[in-house]
Structures are given as C-alpha cells and as structure tokens.
C-alpha cells in the first residue's frame, strides 16, 4: 500500500547503549503432555497446520514421507513446531530416523 497522504512512520535512532536484546518470537510452550494420546493429538495438530493433512488421517502407523506425502522441508517445520510445543530438541539426525507418526510420538514421550 502507499501512504502518500499519511504521515511517515516514525523511525527512531538507536540509543547509544541500546545493546541487542533479542526479541522473543511467537513461540508458545504448550502444557507438558502426559499421555501418548495427548502427544498424538498435539502432533496431529502441528502436521495439519504445516502440511494441511486432516488430523484424523494422522495415526501412529502412518509414515510421514511415503503415506502422508510430507517433504523434507515440511518435516523440518514440523520438528521446529514440535520443539516449541513440547519443549524437546529434535535435531536433524533424530528427525531423519522418525519414519512414522508413532516414532515421533514415542520420541517425544521418552524425551519429555
């Protein structure tokens, strides 16, 4: 949009010792899940949001790549959201071994 008629936004200049405190993004930690069922529900919600797959399609025996047709970049996005939501670390080498939805649920269960 153009803003010719509006006043220009005010851009401040940096105070001399402003430092560089990082701003927290939009990450939200969910409540700590207790059961595998709750983990599955949380995971299904994330997979739905990232890949658009219906939540009821996301069942433990399904493989992410072959059956749910999720590509490697979407898997990274899912890993990042799982980290935020469940408060676990999902490094790339672990991610590569999470073949099925059940693998991911088990990993979160044993890591939380």
């Amino acid at each position, binding site marked *: 949009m153009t803003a*010719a008629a509006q006043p220009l*936004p005010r*851009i401040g200049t940096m105070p001399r010792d*402003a430092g560089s405190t990082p701003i*927290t993004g939009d990450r939200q930690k969910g409540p700590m899940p207790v059961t595998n069922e709750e983990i599955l529900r949380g995971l299904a919600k994330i997979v739905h949001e990232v890949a658009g797959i219906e939540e009821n399609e996301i069942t433990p025996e399904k493989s992410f790549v072959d059956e749910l047709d999720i590509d490697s970049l979407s898997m990274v996005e899912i890993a990042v959201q799982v980290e935020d939501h469940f408060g676990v670390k999902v490094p790339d080498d672990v991610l590569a071994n999470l073949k099925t939805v059940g693998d991911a649920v088990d990993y979160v269960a044993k890591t939380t």
Partner: protein
Amino acid sequence: MSPRLRQLPPIAGARILGLGSRQPQHIVTNADIAARGVQTTDEWIRERVGIVERHLAREDESVVDMAVDAGAKALADAGLAPAEIDAVLVATCTMPSPIPNAAGQTAERIGVRGAHAFDINAACAGFCYGLGTASDMIRAGSARHVLVIGAEKLSDWVDPTDRSTCIIFADGAGAVVVGPADPDERPGIGPIAAGSAGDLVDTIVVANRHSFIRQEGQEVYRWAITEIAPVALRALALAGLTAADVDVLVPHQANLRIIEAIAKRMRAAGARDDMVVADDIVRSGNTSSASIPLALDHMRAEGRVGSGDLALLVGFGAGLSYAGQAVVLP
C-alpha cells in the same frame, strides 16, 4: 595529555533517495534445467523453492557490469549527478578474483571520482550490511551521499549439474542511493539488527577457488525459519516500531518457503493481513546480496509498493550472517 581530536558534526538520520536494478536478459526456466539433463522437475522446484525462472548473465557480463548499470539507474532515480556521490559500497561474494574490488571499478565507470570505494562480503546479508554502513557513515559525517549496490554472478560459482544449487542461484544487481534526511524530517533508515552464527559456518561454503557453492539445505532451512523472524522483529524494536507498522516485508529471496515462514511469524507477532510480502524469487531466483534491492525495484515497478511505505528488510546467508533494518521507501 593526549591531543583533543575533533569529530565532524553528526547528522540525525539518513534515508534512501533512489533505487535501481539490473537483471541479465537470459532467462532460464525450470524446464530448461531439466532438459539439460539435471535430475529435477518443474513441479519439484516450484514446491521446494518456489522458483519458476531465473536470469543468468552471459559469459562476458560481469558482476561489475551489472553493478554499474544498477548503480547508474539508482543515481538517476535519486536525481543526483555522479559528482555528488562520495562513497560507493558494493556488497558481493561472487567476484572472479579478490582484487581489485568491485566498488572502485564500479565508481570509475559510473563517473564517480575519488570516492570511498570498498566491497562488503556478508553473502546474502551483504546489502543490509551495506545499507547500515551507509547510514552510519552519513550520520557520522564521513560521507554525504552513498551508493550501495548488491551485485552477484552466482552462476560463476555454481555447478550446473548440482541439482541442489543450480536450480536456486541466479545473477543480478540492485542499488540504492542513501543521503541525509532533511533536518526537519524523520530518519528513513532505522538502526541495523545484525549478527552472525559462526557455529554454522560449514553449512554454506565455497571451499576454494576451484570449487562450487555447497549448501547443507536442511540445516540452513531450519536456521532461517527459526532465527530470522526474531532478527526482523529486533530491527523493528530498535526503530521504535511494531509489526503492525510494516507495509512491506522484504526478506532475502532465498526460498519461497522460508519467506512464507518468516511472514507467518511476523503475522503472529502482529503484522497486518495486508502487509505485502516480497516474492521476487519466483521470477528472479536467489541472487544473494542483490535480491533485496532487486525485489524492491521490481515491486515498485509493479505498483505493489510506493513512496513513503515502511519496508522491513532482512538478509541472511553464508557465514552464517544476518542483518536487517526498517526503511521508508523513496
């Protein structure tokens, strides 16, 4: 007692005065790459990186050739003569040799004589570093008008048979002229939010002068979708703005999915639904330090952005390095 050194009187703020770009004429489509024998498809490339076509320079078209053209257009757009420019900064990481630098040759060919002239290598973050340096130079009184150019010939450093890189990288140049804001006018370039992640240095590399670019795509992707939106938000906070103030978001055009992930996080932080998000990568590919000014110039030509719009720029790439700032468009 040590002598008292005089400082030049500081200037309150700088702003962008003009914009220009140069793209090589030769267009390479996804089908062209597949037809060359690279194991890929149009659908795969569109899904993974969002690129439909890219522009590649001819053998005899150099980084400096593109920089000169983009720089001259930005000067004309700003309505300034070459003699009024006293610093030329070229952000580039794809010169064919380390010396001479691009900036000196570019200045000479544009007709800018005796100016500061140096290159900045912060890879895909280079343009934002250059813009921040220009703003600081003007504010400190070391230059009045600075020409900042991002120019790259990535095709020189890409293995045309490597399907993980040859589909992404492309050539081009974009430039801005930066000058002092009028004394009664608000600054048009906010403070820079920048930094580096040296622990990930090995993820984007040209190993030596006989090598091509090699990239750990998945690792870089994860870094970009998690770490860059906070940099953009920090740039806004430093400028005293919030996400809702942003008219146009211009992330480095690395990968459409990274751009969308950053935009999504900006919206979660309060950005407006009508915030324009640069998607120049679709037609231009990833041109490293040239991508942000190229996108700005193309969006202006398409009427998607206008004078006075608040743009949030954020570059990120090899180093790994990152930098961003809020700017008011000329």
